[in-house]
C-alpha cells in the first residue's frame, strides 16, 4: 500500500487494496471537506477544531493507503497545537494540491 509515483508532475498514482474501493472515494471527498473546515476554523482561530481534524487525518491516512495524508495531518495537528497559522495554511494548500493530483488504482493484495 502507498506506493507513490511523482515522476509525472500532474499525477500521483497510489496503488490501493481493492477491498477499499468502496470507501476510498468517500474518504478523499471528506478530506476536501476538511480543507473547508480547517480554513473556516482558522478564521475563527478555533485551533482545537483544527487539531482534531489533523489528528484524525494522521490516524486514518496511511490506513487507507495515503501516507502523505498522514504526514500532512501530523503537521496540521502540530501547527494547531503551536497556533502556527502559516504552517496550517501551507499544509492545507499541500493537501489541496495532493487531492487534485492523486489517482488511485486498485489491486488485489
Amino acid at each position: 500500500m502507498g506506493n507513490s509515483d511523482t515522476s509525472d508532475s500532474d499525477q500521483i498514482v497510489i496503488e490501493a487494496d481493492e477491498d477499499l474501493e468502496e470507501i476510498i472515494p468517500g474518504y478523499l471527498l471528506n478530506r476536501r471537506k476538511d480543507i473547508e473546515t480547517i480554513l473556516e476554523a482558522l478564521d475563527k482561530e478555533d485551533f482545537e477544531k483544527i487539531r482534531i481534524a489533523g489528528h484524525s487525518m494522521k490516524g486514518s491516512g496511511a490506513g487507507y493507503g495515503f501516507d502523505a495524508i498522514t504526514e500532512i495531518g501530523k503537521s496540521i495537528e502540530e501547527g494547531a497545537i503551536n497556533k502556527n497559522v502559516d504552517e496550517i495554511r501551507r499544509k492545507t494548500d499541500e493537501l489541496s494540491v495532493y487531492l487534485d493530483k492523486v489517482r488511485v488504482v486498485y489491486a488485489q493484495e
Partner: protein
Amino acid sequence: MEILIIDDSKDSILLIETILKKGGYTGTQTAESALEAYKILGINASKNDIKQIDLILLDIVMPEIDGIEAIQKIKSDDFARDIPIIMITAQQDDQSLHRAFNCGAIDYIKKPVNKVELLARVRSVLRLKYETDRRMQLMRELEEANRQLKRLTVIDGLTGISNRRHFDEFLEIEWRRNLRYNKKISLILGDIDYFKFYNDTYGHQAGDNCLKKAASVIEKAAKRVGDLAARYGGEEFALILSDTDSAFAAEIAGEVNKSVASLRIPHSGSKTDDIVTMSLGAATTIPSNGKSPKELIEAADEALYRAKENGRNRVEVIELPRSE
C-alpha cells in the same frame, strides 16, 4: 459474531469495518465515543435487549473519555468484563499501551491499520474467546451436574425432602453440636395411620400423592437451620429439632398432627377417622458422651409406638433422663 468498534474518527471506523467485512466479519457495531459504547454494552443502563458483543476494538486516544478510562469502566462491569478488548494505538504511544494492558486489554494493533495484521489479531482473539467460553460452559455444566448429584444423594426422590441417609448424617452433626453447647435435642417420628389400607383402597399413585402432601407438612415444621425434615421409611417421617425442649417438641408434633388432618384427604380404610391422620412420637434428650443418637431414635420410636397403642392420630412424648 459481533465486533464493537470504538473510535472517535468516522474514517477510522469505516476503514476497520470495511476490512472486517471483507475478511468475513459482517457483524459489527460502531461507537464514536466511550459513552456511546457504554450504551451498546448496557453499562450504567438496563441490560435488556443489549446485543451480545464478542470483541471490542478500542481506540486509545479519544477526546473526553479516552480508551484507558473506557477499558477500566468496561472491565468493572459484571456483564461486559469478559469481552476481550483489542486496543488501537498510534505507534509512539508506549506509555498508554502499558497502562491499557494493565487494565486488561488482551492485544493491540497499531495505526495505520494494516489489513493482514488486523484480521490476524481479530481471528486469534476470537478463537481464544471461543475456547474460553466453551470451557466456561463445560465447567458450568459440570458444576450443575455435581450439584444435581449432591442433591440426589441427600433428597428423597418421591417427596423432595431429605432422605434417610441425609437424616443420619444430619442427626450425627446436630447431636455433636448440641453436646458441645449442652443443649437439648428433640426428634419426632411420625407415621401415616393405616397407610397400607390407604394404598389398598386408592392405589399406589394416590398413596404417593398422600406421602408428598404429608412430607410438605413436615417440611414446613422444620423452620430453623438446626431443623431437618426427612422421609425416614415408607410412610414414616422424621423431624430433627435442635435446641428444643420436650414441651416445644410436643407442641410442634401437635401442629404437624393438626396440619395433616386439616389436609382433609379422604381415607375410608382408616379405623381412626375418615381422613388421613398421623401418629407422632417425640423424644428429647441432652446429648452426652455416654449416649448416642441411636437412643434418641429408639425413644422417639417408643413414643410413636405408644401413640399407636393409645388409638393413633395423636402425639406421645418421652423425655430421656439426663445420664452422667
